[in-house]
């Protein structure tokens, strides 16, 4: 089997899912921090 462009493109959902996972974790942590900052300006 050749490593074609299609093989690579089949990995787009994986990349999107992993990026979404990291973004969600970041969003939760950042929201927690920002809430804390608003409470203690």
């Amino acid at each position: 089997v050749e490593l074609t462009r299609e093989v690579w493109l089949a990995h787009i959902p994986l990349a999107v899912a992993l990026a979404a996972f990291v973004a969600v974790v970041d969003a939760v942590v950042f929201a927690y921090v920002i809430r804390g900052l608003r409470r203690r300006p």
Partner: protein
Amino acid sequence: VIGALERFLAFRRVPVKIVLVTALLSYVLQIGAILQGQPLYVIAVYTLLPWIPLLLFEGLWKFEHYSLFAIFALVTFLQVGHLGEHFFQVTQLTAMNGTFACPPPIDDAANAQRAVTAGMRTVGEPPTFVSASTVVKPGITGQAMVNAQGDVIRGMPACGVFGQLDFETVHLVWDSLVWIGALFLVTRFPRNAWLWVAAIVASTHEVEHLFLGWIFFMEHDPVFTGNAQVWATTAVGQIVTAHPAGLEPRMFTFYEAGGLQGIMGMNGLLERIIGTDGLFPFRPYLHFVYNSLVVVPTCIAFLIQTRTAYDQYLAKALPTLTEEQLSRTTQKLQEIQFAAGAVIVRQDEVADRFYIVTKGQAEVRWRSPDGEERPIARLDEGQYFGEIGLLREGRRTASVYAATAVTALTLDRVTFEALMEASGSTRGQLDLVIAARLGGLDAREAPASAD
């Protein structure tokens, strides 16, 4: 910042003598390893090894006194070392004829046999199982590349100093810890904008490593055709040289066939999506950039945070001081140690310092007018004394002895008085403590006077 940094980095628990002995030992081991002809990573290990217990011991002091700021320092320190590895890898590639063969080829049975077949090694010479520290640069055919003079080009495996650690599991674990560490530091130091920058870049880097880790661990079917570089290894002592021995047709996993370039690397996922060819940086350069973009903001964030770093014992003893007052006063703290039984302050002497006990236990003894000295209180870690003499009496109203070996942080009179002037709330807090302590003394004195 420089003063605060110097103060933070100075050895506090480890005596200067020990530091000098460690430096000497490290130097001797380094020279020994060089004279033995050891490879670079062994020289580096010998050089660093003597410092590890000393840094651990000192690090504990820093953690006790600076708490989370010490963790921040540790993360920054480790990350600078990590970036150093990436920087060295890029230098090996660009300026030291380095070959991107990571982890470096090992002098195992197969590689040794190829060298025997090529007549570079005698039959009876057993493999050493040591990593190559020299690599002869391969050309496109998989055989040794030659320069204009017809000589082969020798260089290092371009995998940093500790190339044996240059594999996907290590990258995934390390960079995941960096990502989690950066987010944790943001929660602890939320007003430090540079930490947010570091955390956001670390997140981007983490996406890349999760992708690489996923394809490395989950897509292990070797279904792609290709040619693998093979090596023949020779060994002289501990120095192993890897010679290119051609290309061998082999089946590859997705990772091996090119997936290791990841999302943003040369001919990686993003390039395949947009249709360019070789426009993006080759993996070692890309990850050097990623790491620089994490480590530089981390260092800036650390330096900024240094300005407001303060000793936890001071903060616990005088909790109404502002962060700025705490950090400025921390610069003036002096640590003094007393052996068990030693007199720390003597009753009726002129008061000149304020003390906070950080280790051990001190005993307060009061000499009544009849001349008898009695213990009246015990002071544990975090408790303070000396404030009455400085703020009220001018002289010590009681003696304080080291009940056990005692370590105390102290402030001189001038600094202490300036601090009390600047912080009315702290002065109020101390006045209450003074009133209670003097009240206790009066109560003891009253029966004596009545007598």
